[in-house]
């Protein structure tokens, strides 16, 4: 990457520190980044966290196995379904029960719809961060349509508390299939429009190409996962590596890119949207009949031991490490959140670049701050 300018005009006693602080449009929440600057070049970046640390792990230790699931949809609220699915699967792994086939397919459909809606929100926010206002409104047109579909089935727009240990809470809305087919067709048509708006834009390419590069080894060493890691060539899609809920029966390919810079991360997410549409198309017509929830006791008690369940959220690999000592509430829960590790790579990508590059890097890292602070 461009090394610092040869001779350093700044005499050392004056260090120029700015706070890209908790209340900042580009941090998508309350992330506080302290940046040491030399002119516009970044010398050092230090994220300060904790401004939305709501002690979710301490709280989960006092909730029952049915309740703690819905706290996680407040962590990464843009992929709420997938978070709840991770916790429901962890409890099912403890009870050694399987969700019935209909519930599994409904879970995959809801997860892929969430991933689609999440990438659309990310796409609008990236445009907004890099100075383009129009993508925000185009993205939210499809996102609102998807959210209305989910609202008809689950009853809530953003934090849909729909996944329970053993399957899903209710059955699908009668015209769920018709609406989902319509929205997937609309998204496929409009993706061309998304491409015209941002991908081909010269300013966007100059702002993102070659900016925030991270190599494959560094991405693995920093623990990056999801589109951020796949843009550097790291194959880490949990749906392929450790399939859950019948993902092995679905035909889709893992989107990989070797660019490693902001533009590669952008392209990986754009191509992932197409994959989501393909998965939904495969499953929407043959949702198996049968009950949508396996029988579970009212008060769930997991046997003594520990269980680890991984899922692929829109931002990366969310892991639920659940330690139980046989009581009605978990002994210890650790949420391995994707944004926490993706953020740790921010300093590696941002040093040496300009301030504008820092904003572009944070936009393509797709951070959700309560998922970092938990």
């Amino acid at each position, binding site marked *: 990457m461009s090394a610092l300018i040869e001779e350093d005009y700044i005499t050392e006693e004056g260090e120029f520190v700015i706070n890209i*602080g*908790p*209340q*900042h*449009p580009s941090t998508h*929440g*309350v992330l506080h980044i302290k940046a040491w600057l030399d002119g516009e070049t970044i010398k050092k970046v230090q994220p300060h966290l*904790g*401004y*939305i*640390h*709501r*002690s*979710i792990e*301490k*709280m989960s*230790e*006092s909730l029952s196995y049915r309740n703690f699931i*819905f*706290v996680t949809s*407040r962590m990464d*609220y*843009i992929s709420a379904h997938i978070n709840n699915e991770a916790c429901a699967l962890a409890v099912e792994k403890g009870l050694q029960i399987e969700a019935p086939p209909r519930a599994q397919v409904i879970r995959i459909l809801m997860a892929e719809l969430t991933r689609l809606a999440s990438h659309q*929100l990310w796409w609008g926010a990236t445009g907004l961060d890099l100075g383009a206002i129009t993508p*925000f*409104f185009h993205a*939210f*047109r499809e996102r*609102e349509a998807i*959210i209305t579909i989910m609202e008809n089935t689950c009853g809530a*727009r*953003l*934090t849909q508390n729909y996944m329970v240990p053993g399957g899903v809470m209710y059955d699908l809305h009668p015209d769920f299939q018709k609406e989902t087919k319509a929205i997937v067709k609309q998204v496929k048509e409009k993706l061309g429009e998304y491409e015209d708006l941002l991908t081909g834009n010269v300013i966007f390419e100059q702002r993102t190409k070659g900016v925030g590069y991270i190599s494959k080894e560094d991405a693995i060493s920093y623990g990056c996962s999801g589109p951020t890691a796949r843009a550097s060539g790291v194959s880490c899609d949990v749906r392929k590596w450790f399939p859950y809920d019948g993902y092995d029966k679905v035909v889709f390919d893992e989107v990989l890119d070797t660019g490693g810079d902001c533009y590669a991360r952008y392209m990986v997410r754009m191509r992932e949207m197409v994959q989501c549409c393909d998965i939904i198309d495969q499953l929407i017509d043959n949702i198996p009949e049968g009950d949508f929830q396996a029988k579970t006791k009212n008060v769930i008690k997991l046997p003594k031991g520990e269980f680890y369940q991984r899922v692929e959220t829109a931002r990366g690999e969310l892991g639920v490490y659940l330690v139980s000592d046989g009581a009605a509430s978990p002994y210890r829960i650790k949420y391995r959140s994707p944004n926490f590790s993706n953020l740790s790579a921010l300093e590696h990508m941002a040093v040496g670049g300009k301030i504008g590059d820092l904003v572009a890097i944070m936009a393509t890292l797709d951070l959700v*701050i*309560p998922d970092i602070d938990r």
Partner: protein
Amino acid sequence: MDIKDEKLKLEFPGQVHPSADGGILVTKLDEVINWARSNSLWPLVFGTSCCAIEMMSAADAKYDWSRFGFEVARATPRQADLIIVAGTIVMKMAPVLKRLYDQMPEPKYVIAMGACTISGGPFFYNTYSVVKGVDHVIPVDVYIPGCPPRPEALLHAMITLQEKIKHEPYFRKAKEDTK
């Protein structure tokens, strides 16, 4: 479930202000000022967690809060009239929120959006770092329950705030606050 009772009765920190009255000329002037103010409330870009996404939906084309004059969301408190506290406020964030509120020019208003800002919401029990209600930090004008509240609820709260501003005394002598 033995909840210690005396801890639950947290005192209600807000005050209630009676609305004022006055002569024809003064009320007419007040109405003009309040009409102008209530229809151009600029919110501060401030969202801490999930409610911020519903605020974005409200700002977007489908629910479109610019029909009521809220469209211009300013990034700095210097040019904002309204803070929509969208999301949980934790103890580390409280001084920052207080500082933002203090740096706003008068007249300034606060909408507490979501259950977290009213009473700590889902994070009321067993959390050590959450401020149980944002009115411990700054005075609040309108509360909206919901986790997260729907965009229509946010629009309703804004219209309620506009009604409240329309009755604000400016030249009229405000009655003494009955303590």
